[in-house]
């Protein structure tokens, strides 16, 4: 999917198919996914992924494109969800007739309305003031949601039934696969629209204000208005994601608009890479995979996510997409192959090292958490007793030897990397 960014460079003169190749590919992929991952858990994960893709992209409109760090983006997501689930109930009661598949529009509209209200005072400044207002508004909403029971349903939230609307081409959304295609359609349209927005003058000015607000003012743009526009549109798409969440899970609770969800969306966007349009998409996919797959194997998956997040902030501030993009020069010079061996030489010990660390954490966790008489534990299919010495020695060796070997390989990897990226070097490249 990383090619989406490349359409930026596409010339106007290229033929239709070539120009929109990425979008056509995206469309085909969305259509084909359920045939590859047809299990229930696969569908569940993909539905969640779609919702989070829209949510994370809307967040990146603030952080990546507008330079506004928000700690309360879940407010618009949650309100969109609540509004949609209420409308779902109105439709069920027969208050009015409305197709269920258009429901997220209501979510988007309420997100937009609240973004207009809150943005009218919060977008005056970026930086810390914006971050603090967003945090304050987020906490305010989360606390209010427990007070106003009539709208937010208190602790148990509000639930609805998505199958009650008038069917569309025989779709009544009773099955997950139908919901998947509904979400996929919304994802395609939303991603396309958000991409288009980033190409409009308004989207371009958001970048300018992010990079140098003062200069943008001298060119004649009010930094406040530019931020306000981005903020409102971001709220709209967050609301759409919330509406899809309501349709998918048929329940929306206080948890969907509190600080935790706001943190999750920041995490997704940042791990994916906020500097690229596709970054949050990758972040949402990776996070959802971590959440649904890793949590099957281990209780402490959030610890790993936390470590991943902190490491990303420290060493890869452009996220996973940034790491991928670092390879473009080498790729263009057709030297990616010369990096394969160095990658293997540093990668294998690193994987051993990480496996050792993870094994250590898991074993400790098991020893402390399991009942006293239960000494057997299983890790990725390997059964062993935590009370014998052998597994601990293996874990120790993996960590120490892996860590040491990885450290010795750093310099050769650096050399290979420099050679591969050196435009003057011989095109054969040195695969040491």
């Amino acid at each position, binding site marked *: 999917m990383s090619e989406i960014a490349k359409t930026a460079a596409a010339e106007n003169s290229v033929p239709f198919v070539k120009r929109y190749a990425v979008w056509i590919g995206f469309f085909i992929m969305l259509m084909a996914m359920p045939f590859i991952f047809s299990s229930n858990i696969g569908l569940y994960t993909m539905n969640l992924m779609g919702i989070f893709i829209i949510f994370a992209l809307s967040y990146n409109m603030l952080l990546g494109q507008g330079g506004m*760090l928000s700690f309360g983006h879940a407010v618009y997501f949650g309100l969109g969800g609540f509004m949609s689930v209420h409308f779902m109930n109105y439709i069920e009661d027969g208050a009015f007739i409305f197709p269920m598949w258009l429901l997220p529009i209501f979510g988007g509209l309420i997100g937009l309305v609240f973004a207009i209200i809150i943005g009218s005072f*919060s977008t005056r400044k970026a930086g*810390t*003031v914006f971050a603090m207002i967003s945090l304050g508004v987020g906490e305010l909403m989360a606390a209010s949601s427990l*007070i106003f029971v009539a709208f937010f349903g208190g602790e148990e939230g509000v639930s609805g039934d998505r199958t009650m609307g008038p069917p569309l081409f025989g779709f009544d959304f009773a099955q997950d696969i139908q919901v998947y295609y509904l979400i996929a359609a919304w994802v395609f349209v939303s991603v396309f629209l958000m991409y288009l927005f980033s190409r409009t003058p308004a989207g371009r000015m958001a970048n300018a204000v992010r990079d140098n607000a003062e200069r943008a003012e001298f060119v004649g743009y009010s930094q406040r208005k530019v931020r306000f526009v981005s903020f409102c549109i971001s709220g709209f798409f967050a609301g759409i994601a919330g509406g899809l969440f309501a349709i998918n899970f048929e329940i929306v609770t206080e948890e969907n608009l509190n*600080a935790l969800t706001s*943190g999750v969306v920041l995490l997704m966007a940042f791990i994916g890479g906020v500097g690229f349009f596709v970054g949050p998409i990758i972040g949402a996919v990776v996070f959802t995979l971590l959440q649904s797959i890793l949590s099957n194997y281990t209780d402490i998956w959030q*610890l790993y996510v936390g470590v991943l997040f902190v490491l990303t*902030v420290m060493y890869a501030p452009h996220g996973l997409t940034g790491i991928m993009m670092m390879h473009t020069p080498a790729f263009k010079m057709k030297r990616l192959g010369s990096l394969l061996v160095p990658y293997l030489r540093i990668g294998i010990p690193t994987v051993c090292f990480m496996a050792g660390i993870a094994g250590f954490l898991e074993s400790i966790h098991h020893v402390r958490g399991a009942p006293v008489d239960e000494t057997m534990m299983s890790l990725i299919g390997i059964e062993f007793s935590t009370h014998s010495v052998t597994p601990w020695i293996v874990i120790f060796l993996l960590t120490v030897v892996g860590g040491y070997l990885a450290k010795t390989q750093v310099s050769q990897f650096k050399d290979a990397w420099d050679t591969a990226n050196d435009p003057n070097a011989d095109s054969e490249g040195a695969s040491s």
Partner: protein
Amino acid sequence: MFELIFFSLLNGIVTGLLLFMLASGLTLIFSMMGVLNFAHASFYMLGAYLAYTISIYLGFWVGLIVAPILVGLIGALVERYGLRYVHRWGHVAELIFTFGLAFLIEEVVQFIWGKDTKAYLEPEVLQFPLFTFFGQNFPAYKAFMLLISIGIFVMLLLILTKSRVGLIIQAAIHKPNMTAMLGHNVPLVFMGVFGVGCALAGVAGVIAGPALGTFPGMAVVLGSIVFVIVVIGGLGSLTGAFVASLIIGLLQTFAIALDYSVNDLLTVMNISFDADSALRDLWSLSLPQIAPILPYLLLVLVLIFRPTGLFGNRET
């Protein structure tokens, strides 16, 4: 009514001073580095948990001394090897780093100590009512908390205004480059202040742990309130942080103690309302109910109408 006000006042001051112990460190760190440390309340939590573990083996008093020192050391390491490294990516990255750190510390605490509430208790010497007033007891431990908070406040004030170290810190806050030119090791000062700020949060955790409970969510509960204080008081202003801590402390205790609702107000004004309307929650709102949102309401109002805060002189 009088005893209600009396006890609310006392409790409010205890809470306020406790909050100030967190807010003072946060404000000092912010004035130096321009970074709001999201993980500040996590150091408070670490203080409580470390003191709990130490108190099992060596008693409460050893924990009171050792736990804050450990927390301060961890804080200094975080500054030296984390924050200073991330600084090259800019302010937003620093903010996100501390946010990620808060997330990580919470997970680590859950990993080491588990998810349940720990039975971290006040020392037996302090488990008696100090005095009884209108039939209500005032526990000695709260007086002890008050004493420690005031002691730390006075010490901090003296160090910052009277000592040589305090002078260098103040100089490093206002003109870091000039201070470095004069031959002071400014990065070391930064590391020291970050460590001491975290240690203060650790002290707050040690003494608040028995009173407010030691559980993995304790950082989240207090964390955003401390931000509110720092912002309301004015970013970088110690006086502001002090006043705002007391305001928030008193606001919260009084809002919980005084059980009035919109309904009462309406009854006084002879207005009745439909009990089934969609706005029924609004009419039956009571003061204890909205107590948790009052600080945030105040925060948003302050940020809209006076973005520099009550005593601040800069807007970031």
